[in-house]
Structure formats: structure tokens, C-alpha cells
């Protein structure tokens, strides 16, 4: 048993190395003074970071991406709360089908979602802008928000709410005073995950943003120019660091929520 465990452990560690290979390389190239992204490395520099900082288009793209990600995260989480509450607390005919349909974007190829939405928007004469991107992002963030929120709502003890009713609270005030604080860690975790998904989403932003840049579409446009790539590596390093911080926060709140409800600390984001 021990020998087998060692072998598997070595394999699992190698696999982690495979998973992290690109992320480990990213800062190496971001601080490398050579202009070509290849080994051997030349020398240490922070020029690419200052170049990134001074780039005006990049700032516009960042602002757009932040507006989109914040709006999409809030809207997706709000809609997700409705769905999670409905699916965990109430029984009604057709629930499975309706929930399945809402969760469909999770498994549908994004290109199909983007293309069909684009065709309709163009057909209806809607001006493409960051607003249309938000509409699309809410759709694809919602299933992830629901997955997280359903876990939070399902570990909720129903008798707590009933106790609140018995003590004279109305349905809404019981929800606000009892349920909401208990599922708050789930809500924060859902906001963070939706924000991260939206910030990194490329396909929908690429087709639905019109001529407005977002961070991923800006990165995509710059990857064609070898001269710009070191700066993109610097940008990537910042983004990776940022998403690791956000995810760690999300994980922290998820675990704290679980601990508060007495659940076991296993499970992941998906």
C-alpha cells in the first residue's frame, strides 16, 4: 500500500507541475529584459510593468472590464439567489427542467451563446457596447453563482426560519434577518467567482463589445505583435496574482460559511 501511494503521489505532484507550468513561466518572462519570449533569459527589468502602466488603451480596457465584471457579478448573484432559494426551499412541477435550462450555459459551447446572441442583437438593431457584454456575461456567470449559492442555501436549517416566523417576523424580515446573514459567505463567494469569470471571459466580449476593448480582447489583439508581448506577460502576471488573491478570498468565505453551518470543509468551486 505504501509503495503504491508513493507512486501515485509522485504522479500527482508531476501533474500539478504540468498544471502550473504556464503560470510559473509567466513572471519569468515578465521580468526578463529580452524582447523575445524564449530561453535563455537575458536580465532583470521592470520596464514592461511601467510600459503597461503608461498604456492608455490598456486603461480603457481595464475600466471597461471592471465595469462589466462588477455589474455581471452583482446581477448574476442576485438572479442566482432567486434560483437557489427556489430550488432548495420549494417543490413545484417542472423544477428540474427549469433549473436544468438555467444551468445550460455551463455546458453549452460559448461560441454558440455568443453567435446566437450577436445575431439577435444585430437583427434588433441594438448598438454593441459594454452593456451587451454585461447581458451575455450575466447569462454565463449565473450557473456558477447558482451552483455555489445552492450549496449555501441547502445547508441552511429550515427550523431557524420557522422560529423567526413564530417570533413574529414577516416572511421578508425573516429572510433578511436570519437567512441572508447565514448565506452571506456563499453570496460573497458567488460574487467573487462571477467577477473572476467575467474578467477573464473572451469569446462573448470579443463578439458583443463592438469596438470597446476589454482586457481579454485587448490581450488578444496584442498577441499578434511580437513587440508587445513582454508587456502582455507583465499584465498576465498582475492578472494571475489578482485572481489568485480573489480565489483565495472566495475559498476562505466558502469554508467559513461551511464551518458556520457545521458542514465538512470538502468540495471545490465547480
Amino acid at each position, binding site marked *: 500500500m505504501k509503495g*503504491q501511494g508513493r507512486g*501515485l*503521489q509522485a*504522479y*500527482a505532484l508531476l*501533474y*500539478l507541475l*504540468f498544471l*502550473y*507550468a*504556464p*503560470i510559473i*513561466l509567466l513572471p519569468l*518572462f515578465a521580468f526578463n529584459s529580452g524582447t523575445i519570449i*524564449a*530561453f*535563455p533569459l537575458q536580465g532583470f527589468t521592470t520596464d514592461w510593468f511601467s510600459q503597461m502602466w503608461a498604456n492608455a488603451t490598456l486603461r480603457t480596457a481595464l475600466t471597461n472590464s471592471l465595469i462589466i465584471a462588477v455589474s455581471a457579478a452583482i446581477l448574476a448573484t442576485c438572479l442566482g439567489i432567486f*434560483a437557489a432559494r*427556489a430550488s432548495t*426551499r*420549494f417543490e*413545484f412541477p417542472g423544477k428540474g427542467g*427549469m*433549473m436544468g*435550462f*438555467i444551468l445550460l*450555459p455551463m*455546458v453549452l*459551447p*460559448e*461560441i*454558440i*451563446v455568443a*453567435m*446566437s*446572441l450577436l*445575431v439577435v442583437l444585430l437583427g434588433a438593431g441594438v448598438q454593441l457596447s459594454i452593456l451587451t457584454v454585461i447581458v*451575455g456575461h*450575466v*447569462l454565463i456567470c449565473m450557473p456558477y453563482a*447558482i451552483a455555489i449559492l445552492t450549496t449555501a442555501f441547502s445547508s441552511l436549517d429550515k427550523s431557524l426560519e420557522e422560529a423567526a416566523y413564530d417570533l413574529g417576523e414577516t416572511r421578508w424580515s425573516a429572510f433578511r434577518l436570519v437567512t441572508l446573514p447565514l448565506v452571506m459567505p456563499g453570496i460573497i463567494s458567488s460574487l467573487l467567482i462571477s467577477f473572476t469569470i467575467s474578467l*477573464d471571459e473572451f*469569446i462573448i466580449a470579443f*463578439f458583443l463589445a463592438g469596438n470597446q476593448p476589454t482586457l*481579454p480582447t485587448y*490581450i488578444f489583439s496584442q*498577441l499578434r505583435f511580437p513587440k508587445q508581448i513582454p508587456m502582455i*506577460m507583465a499584465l*498576465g502576471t498582475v*492578472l494571475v496574482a489578482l485572481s489568485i488573491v480573489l*480565489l483565495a478570498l472566495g*475559498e476562505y468565505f466558502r*469554508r467559513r460559511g461551511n464551518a458556520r453551518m457545521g458542514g*465538512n*470543509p*470538502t*468540495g*471545490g*468551486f*465547480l
Partner: protein
Amino acid sequence: MAKGLDAQARQGYALIAPPFLYALLILAAPLLTILTYSFLTDGYLTVVRDFTWANYVQVWTDPIVRTVMLRSLTVSALVTLVTVLLAFPVAYYVSFMVRPEKKATWLFLITIPFWTSYLIRVFLWKVILGYNGVINSSLTGLGIIDEPLTFILYNVNSIVITLAHAYAPFAILPIFVALEKIDRSLLEAGRDLGESRAMTFWRVTLPLAMPGVLAAVLIVFIPTIGDYVTPELIGGGKIPMIANLIQVQMLALDNRPLGSALAVTAMAIVALVSIVFLLINRRFLKVRS
């Protein structure tokens, strides 16, 4: 009691209405639109409202479409196979060998790379696998090879490697969940009844883990077949997959009906594959209960 049920159902509908209507408006309506478009005729800058099967005939007879469709299917199948085979031992390790309090940390470590910029990850694989990329330059530097390895250069192989990396957590998590559900006493029973460790794995663990494996297959297969970025960046647009073809028809060539027919056909193929796997899965679920 009947009245109570009605009230409960009413509340349920009221709650689920906002997200459901949103999905109806933003997802179902557009999907129905492209389904309709796929039966209409293309005019200059417009779509003519004449019913036709021509788009589907073209999709199924055009050699270019067939090549691209087959390539997409092959790439997706390969990616799925590689991803699931590589992921299974990791899921097994985390479920059976890692101490319970460490499991969440392992899963967290596995999911982190998945959430970091997809575009940059794909681009970095091009850097790792490229002509004077990390692998080739270090192997030449060490004197192991004289010429760069060509089988990983900007081709279908490099697309497969990149996608296998991108979808790794998708494969690990469902398999892990299925393995976690296995009652450990069943394995002891198998061993007590005189089965070897390998046979216990083959006859007890693997069949019980199959629902997770099949879920992993679907979760990897469906998005990879529609991947747009990897063929575009790694293949430099020279090895298109179905998503790239749909985009070209819809936007660059402005042939919405043909683009719609392509999209609908791709979705139909994906749905067909999914149904086959769900039916197989039903067999394994029956074994379990």
C-alpha cells in the same frame, strides 16, 4: 393540504421566474433564432425569408466543412481521452490517499490554474511548445536533440496538449466526487473475499467511479468542440475548428443562414454524443442502486 402545496408551488414559480425568464430571453430566443435562420436563404446583407434545406445540404456535402467538422471531433475526442486518463489517477490519489483535512487544499490547488487568464495560458503553451520554445531550446541546449521536435509545433498535437491543460480540473472534480461517494467497506469486502488489489479496483472501484468518469467525458468534450481561441492562437488560424468556421460564415462572409446551419449541426452532434453517454451512464447508475 392541496391548498398548501399550491401555495408552495406558486412561491416556487415566483422565485424562479426572474432567472428563468432571463435565460429564456437571452438564451432560448437567440437559439430559436439561429434555428430559424438555418432554414432561410442568404441574400446580400440580409436574410431572405424563403424556406430551404440548402444550408444543411451544403453543411453535409462541402468537403471543407467535413474536414473541419471531423477535425473538431477528433481533437475533442483526443483531448477528452488524454484529459480523463491523466486526471483519473490524480482524482484517485486525492480521494483515497490524501488525509481528509488536506483534500480541500488539493482541490483548491488543482482549480487555481483554471481560473487564470485563459488567453495567456494558451499563448504560453505556444511559447513552451514552439520552435525555439522552452521544450525545444532546453532539449537542444542539453544536447539531447539536434533539431527542434516538430511533432509539437503549431499543429493538432499542440492544440490537444493546450486544451488538455485547460480542461484538466473539469475532469478531476467529477471523478473525485464519484470516488468520494464509494463506500470504503465495499473495497474491504472485495479484499476479504480473496480478490487481489488490482481485481478489487477493476471490479469494484472502477464500475462505481464510472458515473464520474462519464460526467468528466461530457464536461470536457462539449466545450472543447466549440473552442475558438486555441486553434486561432496555436494554429495561427491555419487549422480551424468548427467554432472558427461558424465565426467566419456569420461575420466575415456574412452568410448568417449557413453559419446558423453550422452552429445547429454542431449542437446536434454534441447533443447526440451527450445522449449516448447519458444512456451508458444510466446503466452504471443502475448497477449502483
